[in-house]
């Protein structure tokens, strides 16, 4: 669907995007993840033909965005960070304008606009001036514009920024629904959002792709061995001594005390080894009650920090 090859965008000596290549398959939901200023927006602006790259190519469905912009742009719906809405238009007027510039035949137009309005739930504001709408509604009107003409590829730059929690959940549902019919690329610096909706995550930092995988595999590839966190009632010294009898448990690390009379530990075993039963046996033998036990997968936040703080990052 999308093929990006050796894309570079330079502003003077600063590389906003530094030689990135990737492909997006049909029907995939791809998330760009990265801190502010990582090059997400620049990449999206180049992919949509809004600005040109310094070097490199972007092809949408095999059509080069710079060589045949009008043809390539037919396949793209773009929702930039600030929804590109005209404050002095009414919602219906705006959507008609969007249909106009996307060259939607007037026969299909009415049904399409009605359908899209239903999809993003803006039917109740049809007659209102866009400048009087809340940020959440504006964002949805912007999305409606991007969906106009049902393009094969929908690109969204930080679609949930500035929305309240309820609107974020609604927006996520809309994106998931979109992903069933369209290829979707979205960017975000909120990780939970990306892991909730995306099939694949690409972490971008300083203009480079530092990791690209499914959210699940990204977190497992970065967890060293199998780690579990336990909360145990009793004396910490007794725990450390008890663990010594169980060689499956490679190491034990105290993790402070969060409840009176208890202490937390991080226990780790060999990679792929499940040490939970051993931990139970060990503690019950020494009559140390286990109050909590949970597997320590790195959350995306931790992966993100780990990758973006270490130069270049190791997980590819």
């Amino acid at each position, binding site marked *: 669907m999308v093929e990006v090859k050796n894309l570079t965008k330079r502003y003077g000596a600063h590389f906003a995007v530094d030689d990135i290549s990737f492909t997006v398959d049909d029907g995939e939901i791809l998330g760009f993840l990265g801190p502010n200023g990582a090059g997400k927006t620049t990449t999206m602006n180049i992919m949509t033909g809004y600005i040109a790259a310094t070097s490199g190519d972007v092809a949408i469905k095999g059509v080069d965005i710079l060589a045949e912009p009008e043809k390539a742009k037919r396949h793209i719906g773009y929702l930039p960070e600030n929804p*590109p809405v005209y*404050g002095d238009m009414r919602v219906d*007027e705006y959507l008609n304008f969007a249909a106009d*510039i996307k060259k939607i035949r007037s026969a299909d137009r009415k049904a399409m606009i009605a359908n899209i309005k239903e999809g993003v739930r803006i039917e109740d504001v049809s007659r209102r001036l866009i400048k009087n709408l809340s940020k959440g509604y504006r964002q949805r009107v912007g999305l409606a514009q991007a969906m106009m003409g049902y393009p094969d590829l929908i690109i969204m730059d930080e679609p949930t920024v500035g929305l309240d929690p309820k609107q974020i959940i609604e927006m996520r549902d809309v994106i998931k629904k979109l992903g069933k019919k369209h290829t979707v690329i979205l960017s975000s610096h909120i990780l939970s959002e990306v892991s909730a909706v995306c099939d694949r995550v690409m972490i971008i930092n300083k203009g480079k792709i530092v990791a690209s995988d499914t959210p699940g595999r990204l977190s497992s590839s970065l967890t060293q061995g199998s780690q579990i966190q336990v909360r145990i009632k009793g004396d910490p010294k007794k725990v450390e001594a008890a663990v010594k009898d169980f060689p499956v448990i490679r190491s034990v690390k105290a993790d402070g005390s969060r409840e009176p009379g208890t202490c937390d530990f991080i226990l780790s075993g060999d990679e792929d080894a499940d040490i939970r039963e051993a931990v139970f046996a060990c503690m019950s033998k020494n009559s140390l009650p286990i109050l909590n036990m949970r597997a320590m997968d790195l959350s995306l936040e931790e992966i993100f920090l780990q990758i973006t703080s270490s130069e270049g990052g190791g997980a590819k």
Partner: protein
Amino acid sequence: MMTIAKKELRGYFNSMIGFVFLVIMLGITGISFALFNVAQQYGSFQQVLSSTTIVYLFLTPITTMRLFAEEARQKTDQMLFTSPLSIVQIVLGKYFAALGLILIGTAVTIMFPLMIARYGTMPTGQIVSGYIGYILLAACYTAIGTFISTLTDNQIISAIITFVVLFVLMIFDSLTQVIPTTATASFIFIIAVALAIGWIIYNGTKNVFAGAGVAAVCIIAALVCYLANNLLFDGLTTKVIQWFSIMTRNGNFFAGVFKISDVVYHITFAALFVYLTVNGLQKRRWK
């Protein structure tokens, strides 16, 4: 193109600008008409038309300032430039919308000569010639304003620069009285023009050889002429400026002198600025 033009025209009347524009334009034309034609019983309407073109100085910036500047500020240009419309279509749509607003006002002013016509014979040819000049001047000014609107994302700055440029164009003629007329001065002027042309070509094509080549050929040609017969260069700057002066040429229409060359000049002038607008926007999408 029509889509954009329609949207812009609707935008003018959604945001008061259209009404303010029409009120000022028709108000001033109406007052001039009342003063000259009615109160002083002066029969020539094209004189009124001619004197009201000065209003364009501040009316054109009002109509063109928002065309691209406002889109850039609101980031709505992202929608236009990522849509399947070509840049030419977008620019022409906006240009003709701004010009269309002026044409709406112009159409209303036709009632003034028609009123005069009731009390005598109307010099139809002169009136028509005057109107052609009036509209062509608007076409040129609007093209300049459209171009300047792409240079900034601030409407006010866009309007002020447009005003200044139009003002300079208007007093361009008077420049001829203060510039030196010696052959050497003219020669230097020609070299400067050659360099400017070379730079424009380079800017448009991104081809160093084309730009430098054209400039070099012009300079060499000028040098040969200068060495062969430097009398040719006497007062040349003045002649060139007068030839290029839009005000001199535009004045012809109102004086009842209708020359095809003046029409061609105006259209070329407007087309040049529309081209610069398209080119400037397209360049952002170049490697």
